[in-house]
């Protein structure tokens, strides 16, 4: 709808052809840009259709509507759209016991389907200890609704997700990363491709928050990995207004939208960490985001460098665009012993591509197409995380009394019994 609205800005009567399944999305997009009356015609051409007969039939049945949309005089509400009732977003929105709060939030469409912790004023005050920024500081406006990502709203969603106040610096960096135009967040968050944000953490904050980069890093069970990604998902939904089936039109969806967060296993890596590779100091904590939509785990046919790289090459094929390769420590050691650096691996892997899919986001090459991240624990599996966009890395800004906060929450760890 944005290109339709753009045409209207130039005083050209315009109409968009919109697949019937995207009607709500079209309305939200038009309203979000302040032009709720922008005209569109629902049509039945299958999405991404390549069958000329179906396209012809779909267009033929609505051509009268298209002509009418360009020639039917405007209704008064299309000339001067009435103001919409504003949503109450400040102060207490509900009072009730735990079960009532759950029902209220779920029925308002504010959760991810899992129970949430109640975001009370007291909880928000504690969460705000994780930043020196004032609660009303606006990190940015998040699409598609252009909701203001204030520090307080980030904190509220973080509480709901069960995050600790020590997560606040990463959540603020996460919002900052999403809002970087290089991330193409506005496209990926609502795309039919169900792209999910994949957050990789580097630097000292990994250990301070106990973000797992070792065994089972991408499995449930680590509070930081689980809640940071979950909080970011709620932020995207409640601040950006991207709700599945309404604005987020992912066809199949993606479990990684619950949470896909890991720390690079810098301690068990023979190479420099990702953030250092891209210009940050080793002792600087950083958050990197990209938008893959698939995650494949493979075991190599041989444990020497030829076996590892040959297996990766065979599974990738030639038709891929962007790859985050998760290399487990044992494979990283093998590759390093054989003389491979991250840079050489990137160059080698990129050469396996002979056909790069056209996505409209522009060609990616070299370090823009491949990243190598050491992750995981003992064992011999390779993680292949495939996407089409770019990585964005943001430094994490810590509050003045960070060490006190870290100390306060440091012992909040599971103690598994031996059985």
């Amino acid at each position, binding site marked *: 709808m944005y*290109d*339709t609205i*753009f*045409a*209207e800005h*130039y005083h*050209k*009567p*315009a*109409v968009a*052809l*919109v697949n019937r399944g995207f009607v709500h999305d079209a309305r939200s997009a038009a309203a979000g*840009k*302040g032009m709720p*009356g*922008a*005209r569109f015609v629902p049509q039945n051409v299958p999405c*991404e*259709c*390549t069958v*000329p007969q179906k*396209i012809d039939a779909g*267009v*033929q049945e609505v051509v009268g509507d*298209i*002509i009418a949309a*360009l*020639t*039917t*005089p405007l209704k008064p509400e299309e*000339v*001067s759209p009435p103001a919409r009732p504003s949503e*109450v*977003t*400040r*102060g*207490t*929105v*509900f*009072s009730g*016991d*735990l079960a009532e709060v759950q029902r209220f939030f779920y029925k*308002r469409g*504010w959760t991810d389907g899992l129970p949430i912790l*109640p*975001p009370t004023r007291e909880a928000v005050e504690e969460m705000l200890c994780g930043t020196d920024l004032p609660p009303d500081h606006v990190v940015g*406006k998040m699409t598609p*609704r252009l*909701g*203001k990502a*204030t520090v307080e*709203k980030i904190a*509220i969603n973080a509480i709901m997700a069960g995050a600790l106040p020590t997560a606040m610096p990463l959540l603020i960096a996460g919002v900052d990363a999403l809002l970087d*135009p290089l991330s193409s967040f506005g496209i990926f968050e609502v795309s*039919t491709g169900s792209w999910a944000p994949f957050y990789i953490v580097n630097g000292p904050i990994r250990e301070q928050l106990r973000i797992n980069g070792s065994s089972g890093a991408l499995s449930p069970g680590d509070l930081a990995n689980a809640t940071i990604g979950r909080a970011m998902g709620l932020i995207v939904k*409640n*601040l950006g207004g991207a709700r599945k089936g309404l604005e987020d039109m992912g066809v199949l969806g993606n479990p990684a939208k619950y949470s896909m967060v890991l720390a690079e296993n810098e301690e068990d890596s023979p190479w420099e960490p990702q953030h250092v590779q891209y210009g940050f100091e080793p002792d600087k904590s950083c958050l990197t985001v990209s938008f893959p939509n698939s995650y494949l785990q493979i075991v190599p046919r041989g444990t020497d460098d030829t076996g590892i790289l040959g297996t990766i090459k065979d599974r990738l094929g030639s038709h891929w665009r962007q790859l985050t390769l998760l290399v487990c420590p044992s494979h990283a050691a093998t590759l390093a012993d054989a003389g491979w650096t991250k840079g050489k691996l990137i160059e080698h892997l990129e050469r396996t591509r002979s056909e790069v899919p056209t996505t*409209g*986001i*522009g060609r990616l090459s070299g370090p823009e197409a491949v990243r190598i991240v050491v992750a995981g624990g003992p064992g011999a599996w390779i993680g292949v995380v495939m996407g089409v966009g770019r990585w964005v890395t943001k430094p994490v800004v810590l509050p003045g009394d960070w060490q006190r906060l870290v100390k306060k929450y440091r012992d909040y760890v599971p103690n598994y019994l031996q059985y």
Partner: protein
Amino acid sequence: MTQQTFDVLSPWAETDPQPLQGISPRLSELRGKRIGLFANYKRAAVPIQDAVEAQLRSRFGGEVSISRFVQTDSSDALSSEDHGARYARWLKEEVDAVIVAVGD
């Protein structure tokens, strides 16, 4: 057992008040007008516009002129300087009305 009551805050973002805009007056008819057909980067968009052009030709023959614009990347006109500038020039110079096909 007494249940604790929670006074909870909204996670839903505020938005800045946005001036709502109306849409442009429509054409009295398409005959004699320059109709722009916009296709975004998705693969179905251009074929859809081919079908639209064929339908317009069958109804109006040579009484409408057709101009095409094809988007070259995935950035919409509102967020892409390059695409926005090209699109704006096309709108100003070549068309009286626009039909937008996005391939979805």
